[in-house]
């Protein structure tokens, strides 16, 4: 069921669904290929969290900034990154978005405001603040969105960055995707209290707790936060509560971690964010045929990307040292 407090036009919901479906299908396919041993780079799957990336990115303009971490396939796709280039990157190919230097954990799509995702926990939070600072200095009204997990809120980066962004009133949206796990440790094993948004209070940043599996709720909260940021009212902290279905890395269900992982999965699987939107749209009268078409379209895209990745060449060994520096005019 969708959040009854938020009503969005059906075409927006439909477009959100398509984004979420694209992420889901992509991630499941990647998971299979990891299991089959064809993909070797560590892949941190986003399955179960699709509503967050889809909801937030839908309210951004193409030139707005998005920063991510190790689990950023979803952010990349939701912000408009090229699916072929990401699959090729995961395959370590020269045609990849990072030319085979990055892999799953280092994605980039500069033409749609994504200037790099990296797996050092919390590392891109201060970078996102810096992009917000650049935006303020230039007066170009771009907003900067920082996606990070609950584990990142335990790093100093997070607290220093929130103070800086609040103090300078920067157009930054801090999006904490609380999936209740940092690697193998559940939230309860790492924190005295389940109170992430209170960190925002300490810095004068409004914190909003959102059902992160409800794409309409995410969309609406993000829309409000972006509007504040664009008007110069400073940052917002959104805590999107969701759940990591699969292991920290790879496709396994990771039953041996946390305190009561099995029970948690039993609670969370029925809250599947993709299924939730589908049921809502069915209720709104969208025909099952349309869903079939959407699914075929997305599967086709993913298979085409896979073919592209498989057929692409590896980087040339003579290019090992290329790109260490950019030249003054930007070339390497």
């Amino acid at each position: 069921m969708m959040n009854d407090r938020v009503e969005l036009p059906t075409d927006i919901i439909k477009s959100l669904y398509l984004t979420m479906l694209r992420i889901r299908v992509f991630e499941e396919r990647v998971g299979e290929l990891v299991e089959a041993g064809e993909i070797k780079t560590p892949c941190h799957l986003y399955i179960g969290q699709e509503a967050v990336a889809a909801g937030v990115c839908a309210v951004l303009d193409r030139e707005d900034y998005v920063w991510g971490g190790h689990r950023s396939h979803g952010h990349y796709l939701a912000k408009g990154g090229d699916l072929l280039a990401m699959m090729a990157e995961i395959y370590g190919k020269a045609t990849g978005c990072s030319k085979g230097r990055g892999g799953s954990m280092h994605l980039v799509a500069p033409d749609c405001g994504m200037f790099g995702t990296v797996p050092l926990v919390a590392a891109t939070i201060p970078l996102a603040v810096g992009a917000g600072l650049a935006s303020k200095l230039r007066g170009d009204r771009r907003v900067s969105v920082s996606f990070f997990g609950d584990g990142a809120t335990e790093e100093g980066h997070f607290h220093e960055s929130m103070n800086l962004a609040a103090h300078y009133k920067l157009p930054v949206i801090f999006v904490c995707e609380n999936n209740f796990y940092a690697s193998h440790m559940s939230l309860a094993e790492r924190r005295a209290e389940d109170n992430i948004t209170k960190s925002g209070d300490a810095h004068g940043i409004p914190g909003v707790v959102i059902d992160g599996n409800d794409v309409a709720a995410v969309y609406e909260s993000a829309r409000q936060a972006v509007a504040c940021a664009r008007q110069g009212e400073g940052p917002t902290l959104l805590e999107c509560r969701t759940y990591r279905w699969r292991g920290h890395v790879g496709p396994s269900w990771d039953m041996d971690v946390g305190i009561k992982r099995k029970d948690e999965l039993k609670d969370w699987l029925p809250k599947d964010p993709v299924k939730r939107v589908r049921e809502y749209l069915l209720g709104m009268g969208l025909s099952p045929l349309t869903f079939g078409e959407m699914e075929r379209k997305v599967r086709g895209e993913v298979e085409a990307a896979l073919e592209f990745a498989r057929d692409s060449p590896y980087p040339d060994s003579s290019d090992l040292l290329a790109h260490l520096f950019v030249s003054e005019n930007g070339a390497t």
Partner: protein
Amino acid sequence: MRYLTYARAIQEAHAQLLETDSRVFLIGQGLWSPWYAGTSLQDIDREFGRHRVLDSPVSENATTGAAIGAAIVGMRPIVFHPRMDFMLLAIDPIVNQAANWSYLFGGQVGVPVVIRSVINRGGEQGAQHSQALQAMFTHVPGLKVVMPATPYDAKGLLVAAVYDGNPVMYIDDRWLYRETGEVPEELYSVPIGKAVVRREGKDVTVVAISWMAREALSAAGLLQTEGIDAEVIDLRSLKPLDEAMIIESVKKTGKLVIADGGWKTCGIAAEIAALASTHAFEYLKAPILRVTLPDCPAPMSSALEDCYYPKAADVVMAVRQVIGAAVVR
């Protein structure tokens, strides 16, 4: 020609960069206070506004990371760390992020950031207000490292660093702030990666860095009275290293002393020694000697400080030792 102090030359570079390029801004601690920056940033905030000269919260990590983020999206920030020791709190953004970014993303996203830190030692400040950590940063692929020894280079290298397009560690030395030298009034660059021969000589090569370049020149003056003709190379850039100039000089003199104000183990001096032995082995007539800090934290008591920091006299002794040990080839 006009004379300026080293600190004033740095100040003028900042002023002219801010004046001529709207992408340039400053962030870091102590930007509004002469206590931290001496005259090297005097009145910069008043002249260009505190919105572009951001004296920051006590958050080395976030301010450095923010500068890197701003650089990634097209600004030309200069981050200021008034003491190098404190910059270690920003090691993740510098080493993991700025240094890796271009390579990681296939050269599509550069990080045109200047990370300026000051070596500020002596005066019984002790171990955590004294460090010279240039070797740590020179070790990391993707960073450039410059250490000017003269007012001319202090200005020109800062300008070059801002326009380089890549992360540049600009390390200046508080002990040099009152040194004076010729500095052109206009904006100019000193090329990164080029050393300079400060004194030509035929008997021994002394490669020196920053403050030690000054000490090496004093040493060369003393050695002249003993009939030893030392060539002094001021390295200026630690990375990229001007390998050609060092090798050429060592081939000429056959003897090498390296003077660096950092620690000995895995330091710049060790790297230069390896370079010489690899590329000029058949020309070497004596063991290569290093004049560095001992492998020990900075002491507090001035009685210990006096013997901790290397000086011209240490360079003189090392050169004498090298000359004495030389064999005929």
